[in-house]
């Protein structure tokens, strides 16, 4: 796999991170953890958000051929919380309703969609998915401080 260009040289805004290899997923988790702490999320909510971030980043890497993860601070979100936007320009999801059905993309399915989007949705407070076949997939989630 090609080496990842340094974040600063890639021209991405500072809160956007490339997801192009295994280590990028780890780094993305770290950035999300930092944002979650800064936004005042409780430990359990930090853990849920970081886990969701890991699922989404891995989906983008494995099924979208790599992508981009954005971490938005409370100023952007408009309330105490963190918004994550994970996008790829992979093959897209032909049937989102099916992908959002529990059990379709579960553990035994060889990881059709990782743990599947339904599991990830349960970990966050707001969840939106956009996808177009041949264009890509973009998932936006939010976790709010209580």
């Amino acid at each position: 796999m090609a080496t990842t260009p340094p974040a600063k040289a890639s021209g991405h805004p500072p809160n956007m991170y490339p997801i192009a290899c295994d280590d990028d997923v780890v780094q993305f988790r770290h950035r999300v953890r930092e944002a979650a702490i800064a936004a005042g999320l409780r430990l359990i909510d930090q853990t849920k958000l970081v886990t969701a971030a890991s699922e989404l980043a891995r989906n983008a890497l494995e099924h979208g051929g790599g992508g981009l993860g954005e971490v938005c601070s409370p100023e952007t979100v408009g309330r105490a919380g963190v918004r994550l936007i994970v996008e790829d320009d992979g093959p897209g999801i032909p049937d989102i309703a099916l992908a959002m059905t529990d059990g379709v993309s579960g553990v035994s399915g060889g990881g059709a969609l990782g743990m599947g989007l339904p599991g990830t949705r349960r970990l966050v407070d707001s969840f939106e998915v956009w996808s177009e076949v041949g264009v890509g997939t973009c998932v936006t989630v939010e976790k709010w401080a209580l």
Partner: protein
Amino acid sequence: MERIPIVTLGESLFVTIQVDIDDRLATTLQDDLMERIVATGARGVLIDISSMEVVDSFMGRMFAGIASMSRILDAEVVVIGMRPVVAITLVELGLSMPGVRTALNVERGMALLDQALTARLNSVGVDGELADGDDAPG
């Protein structure tokens, strides 16, 4: 290449995952563990995850995979020290980790291993064949 150390502890292997592992390191650990089980004839594997702040579906599947592979290689696996927030998150994610035994700490993990191995010994006849269901009278 970075590797997670595997320590021999009596008849068992002991692994502590202290780094934030990526998928490649997880896969390497799986391979290394299977090799060590065969090389040492270990009957048990203890995996300490008390340092892990996140366990996502990939890592959960990895533990389930290690457990079932080890069982085929005649070893039992116990995952120890899972943090409460990790347990809550795994359940909400919908991941059940089939076949993975868990214990709160090393002591209870060792006890669970002993228990599992004793139970298995009792279910095996003297000549190594599975005992049949009805108890033959003395």
